[in-house]
């Protein structure tokens, strides 16, 4: 089965260099973080099972670039990119993947449970897809507190077939909550093709069922994501209620680092999507449009390499939690 993006919304944004470079930096940060995590995983040093986000960087980067620090994000099992895009420090995230005490969750959460209150990161999640409900709840809190905060839920095509999707979108719509629902449609949930688990593979079209706007966007075009997310986030911030954005994209690797990801996808399909690399696209487009130069990008590449090396060193050098604290924090107590 050949899969290709049918998304119609290309980028029309008046592009400016600062934004281009910021988006590029985020995408490269995510890419390099993931490649390093993959390397450590395959070296046998990393516990658990990581779900690699490579290929989908434009979604996290494009959406989160429109968010303020005190806005919220709730994420998924494939959440490293969302965490980094929202501002979780790479070393805190890498350490968390290693399960060491210096991780953003003290090593107790691991790859699927990154948490960071300081940047409004309400957690990646081992369950599909309660992040939808958690983000909506954060939006409800913002509405009640009268702030202009917005919450974003990321979830996959697989998640969109789950009952939580229905309950979450319906109620967020009924209450006009400041939430943006971002579906990363990468055509597969584990090895299950989306088209075999639903008769309607156009996730954006499901927004009608909830009386809210639904738009499909090319999830490999970071400027398009940035633009459409910006509109939706702005609408939410102004009390206009939720939007469902379907970002059509693709994961380059298997479902998790242990899955070669080939038995259920053709080589051609994977190759075609690698061609449509969101990082390469931004780079090429921006150079063609004379918005930035090779040198600009190279400088960022170098910078990020250092950040990632430093993060990995930090994570690998950090200790595991001691048994003596293993029973702490089961309950919160004000003394803490």
């Amino acid at each position: 089965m050949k899969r290709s993006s049918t998304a119609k919304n290309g980028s029309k944004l008046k592009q400016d260099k600062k934004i281009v470079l910021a988006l590029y930096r985020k995408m490269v940060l995510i890419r390099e973080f993931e490649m390093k995590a993959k390397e450590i995983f395959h070296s046998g040093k990393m516990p658990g099972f990581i779900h690699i986000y490579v290929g989908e960087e434009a979604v996290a980067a494009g959406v989160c670039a429109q968010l303020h620090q005190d806005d919220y994000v709730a994420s998924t099992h494939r959440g490293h990119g969302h965490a980094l895009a929202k501002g979780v420090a790479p070393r805190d995230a890498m350490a968390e993947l290693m399960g060491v005490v210096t991780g953003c969750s003290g090593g107790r959460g691991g790859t699927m449970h990154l948490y960071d209150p300081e940047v409004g990161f309400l957690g990646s999640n081992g369950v599909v897809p309660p992040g939808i409900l958690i983000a909506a709840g954060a939006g409800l809190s913002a509405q009640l507190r009268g702030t202009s905060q917005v919450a974003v839920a990321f979830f996959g095509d697989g998640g969109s077939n789950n009952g939580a999707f229905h309950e979450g979108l319906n109620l967020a719509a009924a209450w006009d909550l400041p939430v943006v629902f971002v579906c990363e449609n990468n055509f597969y949930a584990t090895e299950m093709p989306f088209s075999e688990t639903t008769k309607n593979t156009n996730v954006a079209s499901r927004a009608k069922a909830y009386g809210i706007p639904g738009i499909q966007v090319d999830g490999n075009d970071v400027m398009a994501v940035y633009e459409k997310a910006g509109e939706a986030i702005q609408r939410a911030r102004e009390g206009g209620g939720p939007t469902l954005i379907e970002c059509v994209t693709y994961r380059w690797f298997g479902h998790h680092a242990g899955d070669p990801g080939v038995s259920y996808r053709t080589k051609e399909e994977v190759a075609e999507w690698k061609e449509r690399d969101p990082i390469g696209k931004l780079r090429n487009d921006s150079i063609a449009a004379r918005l930035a130069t090779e040198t600009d990008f190279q400088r960022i590449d170098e910078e990020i390499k250092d950040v990632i090396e430093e993060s990995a060193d930090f994570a690998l050098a950090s200790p595991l939690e001691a048994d003596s604290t293993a029973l702490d924090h089961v309950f919160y107590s004000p003394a803490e």
Partner: protein
Amino acid sequence: MPQKNINSTSSTASSTADQRVITYAQAGVEGVREEMLRNPDIFYIGQGIGPRGGNFQQSRGLWQEFGQARVRDTPIAERAQAGFGVGAALAGSHPIVDIVFMDFTLEAMGEIVQQASTIHYISNGRFKVPLMVRAAGGGIRSTGPHHSHTFWSFFAHIPGLKVVVPSTPYDVKGLIKTALRDENPIMFLEHKGLYGTKGHVPEEEYLIPFGEANVIRSGEDVTVVTLGKMVQRSLDAAEELQRNGISAEVIDLRTLVPLDKEAILKSITKTGRLVVVDEAYASCGISAEVAAIVAFEAIDQLDAPVVRICTLPTPHSFSPSTDSYLVPSVVRIVAEVSDLMKKKI
């Protein structure tokens, strides 16, 4: 079944002529109201808890007083209710999520167990989840198979949840106020059959701490540990037993997590006999937990086997005859305790 006022024998509320008497449901409303006045972060969502004031009048007047923003009816979507509650709690609000029927906590089990109970721990203490899930269990008048459950043991099995089961108006108010000042996920599990019962509730503010069982009747021969609606039945049975010369001490657990082990152990040391009366099923229930604790901590204090008196292991029946046969009755409690008094080890 005699419906007596439990508080008359309560150790926490002494009986006076001019004491104020209100219902279990009203006591809950008062507690929630006072805490909502005190803490603007508290809000309340659930099915029918708005203008209607709750299936059981458990939120009566709150919508009228606090308005549509802080007191909101939801669709029939328990997962959303619980999940929104978790999200709002993470963002700094303090939600009350009313599932109304404890049976339907099943629909929200993933959100309660996987999200609410874990996040404080797995975020290494960085987030807290101040969330009160409210739900009423137990059977009344043939509520039948889908509306009579008492799942407290499910929640007591899961670390990170506090579990409250109040038995009197006095306790409802004091415990619900404590729950709303506790910034952990709390399962506040009332009983449908108690909402209309009355008891003394002082006008002055008070809180009841978690983890303190109520030795609601003192006795010498046997310890009856119980909770929820079975407290009154156990007290009635105790009176009956007294007439037969058996002196039963009755302990109302009040909170299952934290559990007041000391109160139980202290009583056993005195009586040497333990009976647990629970409307939930025996298998893997809180009755098993109490028995297991005693079998570990105080087996040398026991003079007889540990007896559990629970709802018999069948689905809840609509049939009025079967229904009342299955749930522990005063008669059954009296009979089983009397039997136990004849046993020795």
